[in-house]
């Protein structure tokens, strides 16, 4: 899932300082699950911002709401009034949610309350680690199920580099060396032959390097005939 974390409140407060009326919108999907932008966080954020305003003697109004999935227009419509009724909307969803609101109401200001970080896995409660970078061309069937692009600091295809000490990454000694892990995994699977040959250069065109990506499922798209109202005309 998408893992995000709340921006420092100092940064959020600074962003919102010029505005009188702030609507905070959270999301019940990924960011709720990663404890960053669910109803609880929204409520606590609103409360903390109110306290700050009170402390500094400023008149600012904060209201919090939560939608099911902020990255989908239909859900955002539920809070449309609250959004448009404010001077600025603080999105407590991942950047996808913030951009959805922004795209829907282009004249309205929508600011991010979270830093969207990683495609992560909860290793344990409260710990998420990156395991995918969305390169668009998965190869983990050849690397023992471990992604070297996401889990190696240098995204090496022929690792590990010379900095792998005690099976840890030179960049962060708390992080396992992805290639040591790949080696170990393939060894127990008796498939070391997979990495004995040189893995050639990766085709990055399927990743963000190939430009902004759009995935289309033609059979799922509605034809102009199926669309309603203005959309159909377009």
């Amino acid at each position, binding site marked *: 899932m998408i893992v995000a974390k709340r921006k420092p*409140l100092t940064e959020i407060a600074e962003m919102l300082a010029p505005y009188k009326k702030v609507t905070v919108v959270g999301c019940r999907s990924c960011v709720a699950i990663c404890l960053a932008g669910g109803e609880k966080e929204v409520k*606590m954020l609103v*409360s*903390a911002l109110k*306290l*700050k305003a009170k*402390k*500094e*003697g400023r008149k600012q109004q904060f209201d919090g709401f939560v939608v099911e999935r902020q990255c989908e227009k239909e859900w955002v419509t539920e809070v449309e009034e609250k959004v448009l009724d404010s001077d600025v909307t603080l999105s407590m969803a991942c950047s996808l949610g913030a951009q959805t609101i922004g795209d829907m109401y282009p004249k309205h200001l929508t600011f991010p309350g979270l830093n969207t970080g990683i495609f992560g896995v909860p290793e344990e409660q409260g710990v998420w680690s990156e395991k995918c970078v969305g390169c668009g061309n998965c190869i983990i069937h050849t690397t023992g199920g471990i992604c070297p692009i996401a889990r190696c600091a240098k995204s090496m295809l022929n690792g590990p580099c010379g900095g792998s000490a005690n099976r840890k990454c030179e960049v962060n000694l708390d992080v396992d060396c992805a290639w040591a892990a790949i080696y170990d995994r393939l060894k127990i699977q008796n498939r070391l032959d997979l990495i004995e040959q040189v893995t050639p250069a990766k085709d990055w065109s399927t990743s963000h390097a190939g430009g902004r990506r759009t995935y289309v499922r033609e059979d799922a798209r509605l034809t102009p005939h199926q669309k309603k109202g203005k959309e159909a005309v377009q």
Partner: protein
Amino acid sequence: MVERKPKIVGFCCERHGMDAVVLSARTGKQYDASVRLVQVPCTGRVDGIHILQALEDGADAVFVLGCLEKNCYYDTGSIEGRKRVGYVKQMLSEVGIEKERIEMFNAASSNAWAFPEAVGKMVEVAKKLGPIGGGERQ
């Protein structure tokens, strides 16, 4: 001019926490009358929102009183309570509010001095810091 009395709210678990409160009273301990307790079954029930809301509603200081961590009636409840308090402390310091205004205390039910001591500490903090944002002074 009458000295302004501090406003303190304590969320107290109904197990060791409340037992310690009762024992302190029964052993004749006296403490500042500025403290108002809200009983919860376990400090693990305390939500950061409760603490923040109490500050919004005018508390100068808020504390949470629970069982000792190794002897919590609900096994791990007071550990949860401590973590919640820690998170709110972090949030408060990010918005420029003194994190000393909130605190977690633990007590055994046989511990008569723990509660008065906690109150003493919180009263000191509340008197030193006063109401958030100045507020109405009496």
